[in-house]
């Protein structure tokens, strides 16, 4: 039996203002300029796994399809290699937009339970903020614990290899002035980058 789904979008499917909101974040302004050429998807090494190509994510964002964008696997597949941003003919910082979309998805909790990437991001931030440094082996263990601890058994071979070559450590790396770091981070707890005033309009292109 062929499954039939409606694919039309009505105006009520849009979350009006979402695109504007994203484009007002510093670094994301150039999205206004997107001409949908597809260069980003053409150079993206991960685009072959994406449900929406990076280009489509740009279009969906600009057209206020918030749910579709934030629930897309694309934003999580972005490996931050910056190939798209480097090649984009409109200087759109696509990687930064992906970061912005990831942040929003995390804030709104729009991702599958036990989905490892947001968990990693959260564990990473916690560890970085608490200890000041990252101990990679411990981070991986924590990640596995929070997502799929069965997988930990599948990792024995890698762990052993690292142990053998002296690259596995269970001792927390840490900075001395942890208190300083905590104070610094606490001072920006409630600052949201999108709410900051935009940079002053510069004279962008000099010409003769």
């Amino acid at each position, binding site marked *: 039996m062929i499954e039939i789904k409606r694919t039309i979008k009505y105006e009520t499917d849009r979350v009006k203002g979402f695109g504007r909101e994203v484009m007002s974040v510093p670094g994301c302004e150039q999205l206004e300029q997107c001409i949908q050429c597809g260069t980003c998807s053409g150079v993206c090494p991960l685009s072959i796994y994406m449900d929406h190509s990076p280009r489509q994510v740009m279009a969906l964002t600009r057209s206020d399809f918030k749910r579709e964008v934030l629930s897309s696997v694309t934003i999580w597949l972005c490996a931050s290699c910056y190939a798209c941003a480097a090649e984009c003919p409109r200087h759109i910082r696509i990687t930064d937009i992906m970061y912005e979309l990831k942040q929003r998805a995390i804030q709104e909790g729009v991702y599958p339970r036990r989905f490892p990437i947001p968990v990693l991001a959260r564990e990473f931030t916690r560890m970085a903020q608490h200890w000041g440094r990252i101990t990679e082996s411990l981070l991986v263990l924590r990640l596995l614990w929070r997502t799929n601890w069965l997988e930990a058994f599948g990792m024995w071979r890698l762990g052993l290899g690292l142990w053998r070559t002296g690259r596995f450590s269970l001792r927390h790396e840490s900075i001395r002035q942890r208190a300083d770091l905590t104070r610094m981070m606490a001072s920006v707890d409630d600052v949201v980058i999108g709410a900051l005033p935009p940079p*002053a*309009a*510069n*004279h*962008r*292109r*000099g*010409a*003769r």
Partner: protein
Amino acid sequence: MDSHAPPAPAPWTPRIVAFFCTWCTYTAADLAGVSRLKYAPNARVIRVMCSGRVDPQFVLEALAQGADGVLIGGCHPGDCHYVEGNHKLLRRFQLLQRLLTDLGLERERVRLEWISAAEGDKVRWAINDMVETLKPLGPLNLPGQQQAWDRELARRAENPEPAPDGPPPGPTAPIPSPL
């Protein structure tokens, strides 16, 4: 205005007199218009054929008449329609800047920008940027100051002697030279 209520006094914003050469900067300002670029309404343009026509007296007169800043726009060096009028202006401008500094005026009040006919965007930037630079400096208000000086002179002329039992005459407040 449709409303009969008197409009609330607008907050102070700088008044800028701009001298633009007809070939480059005035044309660039036209281009800004044709491109519908939006910029601050504080600058009023006087067209001259060449920035070389801008006499320092014009600048001083504009300030004396109540301008808070003067913007001069000319062709880029090497691009003058009249070979090198803009170079001549540049020399004069540097002297003028020294004079203004000696008079106690902020250098930012008089500004020179090279803007080619293609740089409508730069006109917008220059005017907006100048307005932003002048705002923190506040009004220059030379006409008002001049009146104050006049009144002060008149008062001193009427009461030439200080009160005999007043405090000893200290250093009198310096009277800045009117421009």
